[in-house]
């Protein structure tokens, strides 16, 4: 509240959904892993590894429980070059959204590649994880960069 020459009372109003979400047993471990700078995929009954992990297998609906380390390197399966990022997006300079298949994982997942310029992007290129200075257990703790 501010009280200046204008005596009317004001209060901030932020439109938001003020719910807290429970991550559940499997995603809870996945995000705790990110806080510890480790990427975990979910092992399926056939031995393949799902990334990002899910509590239930999207094909068989079987409950999944076992998490295994994947990455930090991987291969770009597809990419889209964002030359004019919007204010909500994770980087304030041009970047790529990419489908990245991490080493040890059998599915690609959507993330961000900070490649500098479009000519540095290529389908099939290798990228590796770059961690934010302070990992907080969120998907945004990660960015990918072209492997040196």
């Amino acid at each position, binding site marked *: 509240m501010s009280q200046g020459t204008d005596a009317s009372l004001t209060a901030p109003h932020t439109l938001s959904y003020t719910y807290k979400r429970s991550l559940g047993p499997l995603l809870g471990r996945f995000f705790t892993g990110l806080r510890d700078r480790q990427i975990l995929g979910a092992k399926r009954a056939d031995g393949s590894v799902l990334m990002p992990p899910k509590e239930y297998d999207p094909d068989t609906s079987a409950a999944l429980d076992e998490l295994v380390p994947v990455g930090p390197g991987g291969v770009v399966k597809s*990419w*889209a070059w964002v030359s004019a990022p919007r204010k909500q997006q994770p980087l304030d300079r041009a970047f790529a959204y990419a489908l990245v298949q991490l080493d040890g994982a059998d599915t690609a997942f*959507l993330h961000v590649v900070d490649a500098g310029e479009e000519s540095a992007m290529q389908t099939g290129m290798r990228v590796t994880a770059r961690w934010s200075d302070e990992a907080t257990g969120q998907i945004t703790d990660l960015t990918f960069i072209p492997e040196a």
Partner: protein
Amino acid sequence: MRDVAVVGFSQSVSLRRERNRNEVEILIPVLQELREATGYTNEDLEFVCSGSSDYLAGQAFAFVAGLDAVGAWPPVCESHVEMDGAWALYEAWVKIQMGYADVALVYGFGKPSMGDLPITMALQLDPYTVMPLWPDAISVAALQARLCLDGGVMTDRQMAEAAVRDRAHAKSNPHAQVAGDFDVEGILSEPYLVSPLRKHDCSPISDGASAVLLASSNRAGDFSKRPAWIRGIEHICEPQDLGVRDLTRSRSTEIAAEKAGVGAGRIDVAELSAPFSHQEILVERGLGLGADTTVNPSGGALAGNPLMAVGLARIGEAAARITNGEAERAVAHATSGPCLQQNLVCVLEG
């Protein structure tokens, strides 16, 4: 199964921005036109179902206001889906199949111009592992387009040709937003919007509404001289994560098409709701359409994409071509979710 038909259809003009009208005000003349065309009154309606999205309006239960356009009397048996109106039509069709209604009003409406639509669409993605990265709708579609191009599934020339075809057809559609004679070479020399998609590959952002009147066989003749009978309708959803799907085909369209019986006879007209040119090609293939089918005579979603109303409008457009005698058998398609995650297929006959 009960015979159920589309006996009336109306829609607003698709506009990039409805400056002076809210959703109810967009809807009122659309429903009025439907009343005048079919002669229905509120006493005829045994079920009312709408499709819209609170995320576009930015407030909970925003769809309730839409009912103001239907009228307050007599009280209605009403439902709503947080989906395109095509899925509201599916619910109404089920209601009629169950014997709970003979006449149902279905409508869809959306005013995406109130926000930044490509960013709003990020809210439909996995809230934990994907949405916090705010992948906009164009970028997500671009990931799929590159998979199609890299995989040799299609060329960017074919994508441009789909856009040129639709927008040429749209010249005869007074409700279309983007219409005209474009040229493939010119389009291919345009810069990328989000590489590998150019602006022409994307549907416009449109405000608008559409409405359909459904009736069972014992009432259809009261409203239409030539009802468009729904001979098959099915919708199928694929898993949530993009990485577990084959994005270079539309498996859910294929399954829905088979269950709806698309291949059981010649299809004269197909109305597709794919919001990106490469997706239109995937849907066309998923439906198994041949050269004897006229695709998107209205221009489809690439000519006007009133979110939450566009799929229902495809059913209405296909039905209208049966009712006016242009077509004997038609198929309509609606989609929902990123990269054609969920698809609805509806087969109509005269």
